């Protein structure tokens, strides 16, 4: 079904393109938000991604790969956005209201998330991107390579380096990573 929509969209059918992308917008937005750490920039990036996808759709040679191709366009757009806006966006950590009743388990989970949040803020845009593609989009390495436009070995080493950098950032803050069993369920 999607392949037919892709084929129709490639022939210039805007309605088919709208149908094809409507259900994918939420996931694109989520990925962009994780990469850019800014809601407005993420929304702009998704819009740019959809417009670029429309104009360049004829470059997609295999309709089966529409999702990977769309994610690749998103990664490129996010990279451009980050390059333009880097340094101007300051994202505050989400504060948890103290009046909320928080169970000990949730507290542990929030503490682990807070550690990782802080660590992620120390990563470069490229490092965050590779982690989002791998662990949010949850793609196997081969598909990560397609989305990132990099050789497989390079992707693996970038993931390792990003994880190393994240671990180093956590250690540098004097916050050894403590992820309780409950926090990763």
């Amino acid at each position, binding site marked *: 079904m999607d392949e037919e929509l892709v084929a129709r969209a490639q022939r210039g059918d805007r309605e088919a393109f709208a149908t094809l992308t409507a259900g994918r917008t939420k996931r694109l937005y989520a990925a962009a938000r994780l990469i850019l750490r800014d*809601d407005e920039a993420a929304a702009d990036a998704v819009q740019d991604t959809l417009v670029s996808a429309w104009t360049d759709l*004829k470059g997609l040679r295999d309709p089966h790969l529409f999702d990977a191709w769309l994610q690749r366009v998103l990664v490129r757009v996010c990279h451009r956005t980050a*390059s333009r806006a880097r340094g101007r966006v300051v994202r505050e950590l989400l504060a948890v209201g103290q009046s909320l009743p928080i169970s000990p388990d949730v507290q542990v989970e929030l503490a682990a998330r807070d550690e*990782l949040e802080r660590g992620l803020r*120390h990563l470069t845009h490229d490092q965050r991107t590779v982690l989002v593609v791998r662990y949010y989009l949850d793609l196997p390495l081969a598909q990560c390579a397609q989305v990132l436009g990099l050789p497989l070995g390079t992707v693996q080493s970038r993931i390792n380096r990003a994880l190393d950098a994240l671990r180093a950032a956590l250690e540098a803050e004097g916050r050894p990573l403590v992820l309780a069993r409950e926090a*990763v369920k």
Partner: protein
Amino acid sequence: MTGESQLERGLTALFQSDAPVHAPIDLHAAAMAQVAQRRQRPAFLVLVGGDAFPAATTRIGSARTLVLIGVVLMLAAIGTLLVVAALPDDDGPTTSAGWITFVDSSTAPAYAIWRVRADGTGAYRIGAGECPSVSTDGTSMVFIAGRSGDVKGQTTAARSDGSNQRVLVSIEAFTADVSPDGLEVLWPKSVGPAITSADGSMSMGSQSELWITPISDGQGLLVVPRPSPANVQIHGQTWSPSGDRIAFVQSAITFDGGRPVADEAIWVVNADGSDLHLVASVSTATWISWSPDGRWLAYVGDLVTNPQVRVLAVDGSVETVVAPASQVQPNWSPDGRYLSYWDEFGISTLEMSDGLPVGEPNRLQPSTDHLYTFQPLVWSPDGRRLLIVETRRVGSGSRPENFATRLFTVDAKLRGPTTLILDRGRINDFSSCPIIWRP
């Protein structure tokens, strides 16, 4: 469970929980409204543009592929010729012209000022002294001479080769700065008593005025008088590239539970003392670097808790956090193309345009076994090379003779080979008095 798999699981959990439940309602509709106004690019242009997905593979024998390859090769050849002819060499030569002025601190507290050509030849000793400042045009210098033990030094002017030395003012103005044209000297004069906490237990030095004195005689002009609130200090004064203005920092000192706290602000004044005005209140600003076009001021803000390179419009209208940084002075390249600074990765240069960064920073990680490399990065006069100061331990203990310093240069993008300029005993242990590279 390994540490890494635990980290990976944590990331997945964070990402899934941090992902928004809903995208903005009108996001897709807004995108489709734009799509309605756009045409698709023809397949040929997409292929030539390299956006084919998956990446195009060459099929030898395909007439279309061969034609495409031929066209691309021809365009590439023409393009390469045009680019090579039109653009300057980005990496530049591995050596550069000019003179490097530095302080030999291997015999501290007896310091001496030295000079060496940028290719590492012709090193010679100018004389006893410290904290030199050399004019941008490379004609004049000032430094502190005659300091010994409890004996205060004097602010001394000379030609940049060290000749024609004479006392400019008979006080120690460690941060005296020669104007870009080498004709005047901007210097701070301490006035009044030290700023002291209410209980008298802490003291933060005295207030000061800013004076400009022609290098040819001692008749000075008071440019910025002593601030009226008795707790306000002036520091970080620096000439604009055209020499018509001066930027400086005012720090209002208070004492909070025995700890000094400074509220800081960047000010600008014309070199004749007129139009003294506040540009912006800032968290901290210890060092200021003017952009060569005189429109922007780069400084390290939030110095203690979260150091950042910030770029502030001289009219105060815009401020941009450009990059995370370390506690070292950022410097604009003389051609205005790059900002150099230290950050958690090591040395970085960042291409700038209209006060905003362009692309990702270039980075160079110095070897980790070398100490005290955190000195400001010094640009060559043509802005094509950067001087890196590397001080390493050669013995145990903290005495100066247990350290040695090497000076390297590297191209502005930090990717070419480094060139060793000098390898000798310790130099420039005064981070407040950086090494200078002038024509």
